């Protein structure tokens, strides 16, 4: 491009260029404005979808954090609990607590008669009520013989009705709850005998087929053990691999091949790692199906390439002058890496590891193969107990017919999202606090 100086160009000609430039200028500004607005539109569309997703999930899920309870007058009749009067713990354990619940319900509605009517009445409280009474007596046998007003868990249909998710205007046959049941619930509500309490069950119990008794503790513990194994395996191995490849390995065809393979592994669909885990850990090493140990092993295979790649990037960002200075002071290569390079690269490595772990936390496909897509009631107590993980729990709940599982599914998603945000937040804090710019 030649730049004509104004002096060298005749005045008329220069005016001509000016008009040409001016005419084009508007177009160029318009093009820039257009480009900016495309960018804005793209960002706001993205944000809109995020907001929609969050609004949808939170809107559906927040009622699940409250649970309806019914206050029932229970009389711990010794004739039912301990007819022999021996106070034998085994006999007390196996007493007919359901009869106590039924008696309590009848006491509230003495006029209800007939088998079907009574069944409908008993269906207002959850089947957990029986076990609740059993637990109370187990804790405090002195209760036998007393009468108490006890808050018992309401059934899922009552819970859904109280939360306003059942249309009362519908015909009786189209509702999961019958007219007479709605009548009783209304009476109880008017008498203040129905109350919504914070849903501790959601966080304290394992899976259940009854929505009101289902919780995510089993899945949370399963996720915890699985991620623990994943971290313990993939972080040291990943860091060691990254350090060796970056600092010690000779640059030759073999290391190139390894590098290409690691990059490829990072892009392999996760289900493939599940198949590998099934073949190697379960079929060959005879490890138990559904165990967090196997889940952790499979997920660490998946997370390793991510950690290695992030680790190598963190190592390359440490300037060579640090290495040279250390070597110049007489440090050995291992001391140079151990005392200087690794500490400086660690924040970046940890960030990579946390992002890899967050990905592993959200993974469900490879776990299908190794049997972690399962209904497990007992909360796992170790890495060998059968377990499931949070995303799998969400998948399983979303596929159940009961309406009350919809809000629980969303609540579980909220918990999963909270952990994701937490982990990614931690990664950002680590990067901001400890990363050094050169």
């Amino acid at each position, binding site marked *: 491009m030649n730049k004509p100086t104004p002096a060298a160009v005749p005045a008329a000609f220069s005016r001509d260029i000016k008009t040409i430039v001016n005419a084009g200028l508007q177009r160029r500004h318009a093009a820039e404005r257009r480009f900016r607005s495309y960018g804005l539109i793209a960002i706001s569309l993205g944000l809109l979808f995020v907001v929609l997703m969050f609004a949808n999930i939170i809107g559906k899920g927040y009622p699940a954090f409250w649970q309806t309870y019914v206050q029932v007058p229970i009389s711990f009749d010794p004739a039912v609990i301990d007819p022999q009067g021996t106070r034998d713990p085994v006999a007390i354990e196996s007493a007919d607590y359901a009869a106590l619940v039924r008696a309590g319900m009848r006491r509230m509605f003495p006029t209800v008669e007939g088998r079907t009517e009574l069944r409908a009445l008993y269906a207002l409280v959850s089947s957990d009520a029986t*076990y609740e009474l059993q637990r109370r007596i187990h804790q405090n046998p002195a209760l036998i013989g007393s009468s108490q007003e006890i808050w018992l868990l309401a059934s899922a249909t009552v819970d859904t009705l109280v939360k306003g998710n*059942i*249309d009362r205007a*519908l015909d009786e*046959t*189209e*509702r*999961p709850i019958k007219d007479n049941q709605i009548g009783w619930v209304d009476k109880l509500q008017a008498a203040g005998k129905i109350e919504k309490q914070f849903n501790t069950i959601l966080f304290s119990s394992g899976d*259940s*087929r*009854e929505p009101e008794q289902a919780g995510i503790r089993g899945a949370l513990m399963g996720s915890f053990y699985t991620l623990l194994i994943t971290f313990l*395996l993939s972080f*040291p*191995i990943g860091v*060691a*691999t990254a350090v*060796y490849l970056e600092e010690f390995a000779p640059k030759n065809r073999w290391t190139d091949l390894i590098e290409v393979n690691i990059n490829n592994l990072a892009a392999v669909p996760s289900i493939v790692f599940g198949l590998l885990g099934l073949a190697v*850990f*379960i079929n060959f*090493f*005879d*490890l*138990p*199906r*559904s165990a967090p*140990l196997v889940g952790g092993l499979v997920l660490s295979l998946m997370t390793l390439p991510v950690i290695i790649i992030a680790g190598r990037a963190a190592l390359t960002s440490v300037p060579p002058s640090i290495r040279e200075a250390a070597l110049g002071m007489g440090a050995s290569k291992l001391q140079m890496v151990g005392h200087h390079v690794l500490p400086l690269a660690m924040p970046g490595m940890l960030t990579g590891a946390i992002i890899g772990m967050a990905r592993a936390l959200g993974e469900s496909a490879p776990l*299908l193969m190794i*049997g972690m*897509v*399962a*209904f*497990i*009631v*007992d909360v796992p107590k170790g890495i*060998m107990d*059968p377990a499931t993980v949070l995303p799998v729990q969400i998948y*399983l709940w*979303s*596929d*159940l*017919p*009961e*309406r009350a599982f*919809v809000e629980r599914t969303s609540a579980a998603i909220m918990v999963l999202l909270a952990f994701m945000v937490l982990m990614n937040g931690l990664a950002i804090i680590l990067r901001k606090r400890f990363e050094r710019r050169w």
Partner: protein
Amino acid sequence: MLKQKLVLALAATFVVTGAAYAQSARDYISVVGSSTVYPFTTAVAEQFGKGSKFKTPKVESTGTGGGFKLFCSGVGVQFPDVSNASRAIKKSEIETCAKNGVTDIVEIKIGFDGIVIATSKKAKPMALTIKDLWLALAKEIPEPGTGKLAPNPFKTWKDANPDLPASKIEVLGPPPTSGTRDAFVELVMDHGCKEFAAIKELEKVDEKKAKAVCQTVREDGAFIEAGENDNLIVQKLVANPNALGIFGYSFLEENLDKVQGETINGVVPNFDNIADGKYPVSRPLFVYIKKAHVDVIPGIKEFIAEYTSEKAVGDEGYLSKKGLIPLPDAQRKQVSANANSLKTLAP
């Protein structure tokens, strides 16, 4: 070096823990199989865990075929004890089982599951027949008159049957991997095509071709594979009143405020009609038990007893509340007697 040692140490850990695990017997029942039976078996498992001294069984949702694959891999604590199935076990699967030493299998028929064809409540009900459904959904149909096979030309339900409304054919159904799809093909498509003389003729000449013609679902967008999640199909029906959806009866029962089941051959899909066998699109559900595990894994006998008890599978049992249609009384008694005496399948 360090890495090598690590790898060696890890490998050693697996072998040791694996061996330790194999030696210590599993103390809970392991169930695998169909996602259709999953909601029922899990309910039984939970009741069993709460009401007995045994641990709650673990129930995996792997699909019927995947379940049998695991179930038939062998005898031993590392293999499952029970397999859920939304169809009867196939001969080929029995053979695989036998090859791996799983010879004695106890079958429990737990009840029926209706497959409903439903629309949004906003849509006008259609009186469908199995023949209409086949005409609307088959890939190739015989031309009227000549009986020659031609790609399905029908765009609206009215094309298939003049009594039906002129709305677009749009059916949301499960993918071929699903047991519900198998059952739909077997109960609707296979029967629907037999109503045509041309297909019957073809069956005499070339049975395989006839079967393919009967069972192949059209791929031009009229039948939409909507995934395994039945709740999703219900949601899509609400959003699109013109569409029909295929799913299990329990999802209809839970969503009666949103969707309605279409009558098939004049029969309404409801509890009584499916239980009586009047409703044509219903299938039995099964649970299979490995007899060799019965005294090895604690609680299997008691689990069978729970699964065949009146309080579970009876007319008013807890499974009927979850949408399982109970067997007729006499059959139920027979099934229960056979299962509790551990009568195995004839080889």
